[in-house]
């Protein structure tokens, strides 16, 4: 899936490690999500959406 996590993270001025800390995942996992190499689970996707205050569908899009 495509996602806008990197852009949203950049808007907050957070590093990948900062975002990982807020989501309780590793920096490497954040990187894998942003580069599209890993699609997060539903609970993690909802956590991301809640963190950025956006609907999940605006953050994650099918290819």
């Amino acid at each position, binding site marked *: 899936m495509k996602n806008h996590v990197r852009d949203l993270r950049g808007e907050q001025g957070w*590093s990948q490690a900062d975002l990982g*800390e807020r989501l*309780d*995942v590793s920096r490497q*996992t954040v990187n*894998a999500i942003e580069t599209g190499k*890993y699609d*997060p689970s539903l609970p993690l996707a909802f956590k991301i959406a809640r963190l950025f205050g956006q609907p999940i569908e605006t953050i994650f899009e099918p290819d």
Partner: protein
Amino acid sequence: MTAPTETAGVDLRRRAQARRYLGEFLPAMLGYVLAVPVSLLLLLNVPMASALKVPVALLPMLPALLALRAVLRHLRRLDELERRVQVEAIGVASLLVGMGTFALGFLQNVQLLPAPPGLMLWVFPAMIAVWGVAVAVITRRYRDGR
């Protein structure tokens, strides 16, 4: 102000996880390393009933089980991608080493390969070794060459 989650490029979360894991794993491994010679010394030098020899021979399994507990607790602390990588690597290691011992079994069955005592003790270490290599290979799939 952003949370200080990195120190010299090291993820503090990872460091804390490693500390907890090693705090449980290393004492167990130390117990294992001590239990093996103790077990052997007892079996070789102390006369004992046959029924007692089995638990004495299996003495190293007690700390080994504690080490296993440490590994399982560590797996549960990992995030979803880290856990996926580890579980996939364990699966690959199980299949590869399983197939390898299967092949060795065929050779031993027709006596093309010797079957020295203690050979089975190397199966688990072989799995651990292949597991480590598999983690490195599988992890690369999720990296972007940072």
